[in-house]
């Protein structure tokens, strides 16, 4: 009697309905993913092959006009070059500033560590637009608080060029994206055995040597994964370049926005957006592959 029960239960779990259940359960999420991610991307890619004219509007044909334009026009080359230059600079700056920041945080004593971690991560709770506008208030032309103060103190005669400059965009983006780098390095530091530094010290290594030879190599994967996050966010950032860079200093994201909403040339905007997506995916997948190959031996 008992035996038969067990047999029937086990046969039920291997039967067809049981195998279908996991798929059924994940179906809603899958449909949502298809609906809000895959379909719009596919439509954008398709759109980039359509034709457009001032008076005829969007023509649903398949031509390479937009792609040829993006590939041949120096204007677009400049945009994309600027986008990746800014993203690279922001990534380097967050790594150089955020790495030490995370290390100092991890060495703090408990009450202070929690407080300062909150200080570092707190800005994430505030809108990117608000944080970027803060920079505009500080440096925006001759009425910006800092520019005004420096001019009144007689230290500078003209306001510091910040708005509508690449420097301004890089500085503001670095500030906005810093928490992501700190978090990534922080996570890597948490995995560090605290005794490892003591071990190096007992073998005669000074503090600088310990940092360079022991801590840095172990934290490097964390820095690199933080760099991937920061780079992709910086390259696709919209709000900060739009506010600081404005119309004069466009990057790929603001360019696509302008093509869509000002020129109303949707197909060209779609081509720009698709190219940005492809470039980012290529760079990120490449970096990830490199990271995994380089550190597989050590960290897996």
């Amino acid at each position, binding site marked *: 009697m008992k035996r038969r029960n067990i047999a029937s239960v086990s046969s039920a779990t291997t039967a067809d309905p049981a195998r279908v259940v996991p798929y059924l359960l994940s179906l809603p999420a899958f449909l949502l993913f298809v609906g809000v991610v895959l379909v719009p991307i596919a439509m954008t890619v398709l759109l980039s092959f359509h034709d457009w004219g001032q008076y005829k509007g969007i023509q649903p044909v398949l031509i390479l006009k937009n792609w040829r334009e993006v590939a041949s026009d120096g204007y677009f080359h400049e945009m994309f070059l600027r986008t990746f230059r800014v993203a690279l600079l922001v990534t380097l700056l967050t790594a150089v500033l955020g790495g030490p920041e995370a290390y100092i945080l991890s060495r703090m004593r408990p009450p202070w560590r929690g407080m300062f971690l909150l200080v570092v991560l707190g800005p994430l709770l505030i809108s990117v637009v608000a944080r970027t506008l803060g920079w505009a208030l500080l440096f925006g032309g001759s009425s910006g608080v800092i520019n005004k103060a420096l001019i009144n103190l007689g230290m500078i005669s003209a306001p510091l060029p910040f708005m509508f400059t690449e420097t301004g965009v890089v500085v503001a983006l670095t500030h906005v994206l810093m928490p992501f780098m700190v978090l990534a390095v922080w996570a890597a530091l948490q995995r560090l055995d605290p*005794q*490892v530094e003591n071990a190096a010290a007992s073998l*005669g290594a000074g503090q600088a040597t310990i940092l360079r030879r022991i801590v840095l190599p*172990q934290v490097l994967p964390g820095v690199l994964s933080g760099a991937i996050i920061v780079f992709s966010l910086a390259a696709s950032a919209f709000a900060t370049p739009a506010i600081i860079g404005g119309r004069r200093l466009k990057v790929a994201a603001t360019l696509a926005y302008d093509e869509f909403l000002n020129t109303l040339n949707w197909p060209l905007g779609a081509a720009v957006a698709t190219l940005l997506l492809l470039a980012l995916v290529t760079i990120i997948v490449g970096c990830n592959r490199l990271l995994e190959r380089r550190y597989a031996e050590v960290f897996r």
Partner: protein
Amino acid sequence: MTYLVLDRLSKTFGEQIAVDQLSLTVGRGELVALLGPSGCGKTTTLQMIAGFQPPTSGSIALEGNDLTAVKPAQRGLGIVFQSYALFPHMTAAENVAFGLEMQGIARAERDRRVQQTLALVGLAALADRFPRRMSGGQQQRVALARALVIQPRILLLDEPLSNLDAKLREDMQIELRQIQRTVGTTTLLVTHDQSEAMALADRIVVMNQGRAEQIAPPHEAYERPATAFVANFLGRTNILQVRADADGVQIGDGRWPAATTAGPTTASIRPEKILFAPAAQRNAVSGVVKTRIFQGNHWLYQVDTPTGLMIVIRQNSGEAVPSEGDAVRLTWRSEDMMLKVAGEART
């Protein structure tokens, strides 16, 4: 003769006293074990010797020079950490070479010494492997090689075998002892495992609540425990409440001659020193076997006697053994019985 001297070393964390006036002298080439339960201050003591914790008071002297103000990097000590603390981004050979590199030793000499030390710990074949790809025992050997290669003035071992499984631990105990004998490095071992301390050490320091309860060779500490804590911590022991009179003690229906003062006292007898006696024997206690447990190489009995439950351990020698419920008589030699283990004397 004296090499390392700890003089009234103390460490307090706020209100809590971690190490309390610990004094210890270690001779050159000696292996001394700090043994005690967790929280007894043994690891804190090691950390102070290594220089990772400053002592609250007292001093540490090595070859007559005060170490207290010397930075950890300049102390020249080899440390094997409980977690091994290997550098995961370096191969075994690079791990071992690190200390020599810090000393600025030339490449050829360095390679030679790394090879030699890896061979000493039996890892010559795994020099190019990363720690994550090694077993616990192999990582342990790398940690040992890394500490030994710099020819440390003292080798500090912090629970070195606690992360290994029982069988491997026994093998490593023997090997560790042999390596220490071969190299002759003065060694301080911190452990909570009494069998490890007894197997490895020339002398053991039994610690409890920051104090040294007894400092003695393992055999002596086991046979002549200075306090009740030591008696209980080192192996099992039977502690009986007995009455002594002018020329002996009466335990149940048995009588043992002993030189002691009359009055109530305690007697402690190691379970393996107790024998089953023939019915006629005078100095023996009658009892009934309550439980009998087979443990492979020995039998463990609990025997109900008029003075309480006694534990008896007998070798599994193949002779007939009493069963549960059998009436037995237990005997032991007078000299195997310690009367009044000091312990009440301490506050």
